[in-house]
């Protein structure tokens, strides 16, 4: 679970003002009818990249034991994506959406849903979640800029179903 914590402000002498201690959890509560989905991919010996190049892989959707490229009718809600490198090099991760598989093949991105950077590890926290739209293609862009051949672990967390109330 990933929790973002803010420092409690101290004013004068006395009790700390805990009303200012705000926590934002990126892992949603699981409700009845929801499933948790987990993607884990280990890439080995990928050729070196230079900024701003990145590798792109489609997020596959598991429907009735088969994988498909486009989002199914039952919505997936992505809420956390991370990339972890084997060394302390700059790592980038990004989630993008294409309107269709044809758009993916021609490279026409409909929207960027978030990008995160970090040294050794990049974590993209989608606090409100991103609900997959039926028929769209989602892909993850990932990169490590050590200038050398690299390994990378990419993980993606999602919920399935019950996202109708998301704004």
């Amino acid at each position, binding site marked *: 679970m990933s929790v973002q914590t803010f420092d409690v402000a101290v004013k004068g002498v006395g009790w700390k003002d805990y009303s200012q201690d705000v926590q934002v959890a990126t892992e949603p509560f699981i409700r009845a009818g929801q499933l948790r989905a987990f993607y884990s991919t280990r*890439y080995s010996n990928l050729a070196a990249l230079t900024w*701003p190049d990145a590798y792109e892989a489609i997020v596959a959707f*598991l429907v009735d034991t088969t994988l498909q490229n486009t989002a199914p009718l039952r919505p997936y809600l992505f809420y956390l994506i991370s990339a972890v490198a084997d060394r302390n090099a700059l790592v980038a991760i990004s989630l993008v959406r294409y309107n269709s598989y044809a758009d993916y093949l021609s490279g026409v991105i409909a929207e960027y849903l978030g990008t995160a950077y970090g040294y050794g590890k990049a974590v993209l926290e989608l606090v409100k979640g991103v609900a997959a739209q039926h028929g769209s293609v989602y892909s993850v862009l990932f990169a490590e800029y050590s200038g050398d051949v690299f390994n990378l672990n990419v993980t993606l967390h999602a919920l399935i179903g019950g996202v109708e109330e998301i704004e």
Partner: protein
Amino acid sequence: MSEETEVKVKGRISVGKEQVNFETQKIRKRKLREGK
């Protein structure tokens, strides 16, 4: 953006009780959006 190439990976997708392992994946090169 480059053509897709198939690379060896160690991958797993799990949805509830269903689980699928995969050993190859198609990836391609493209540029990150700059300034974000």
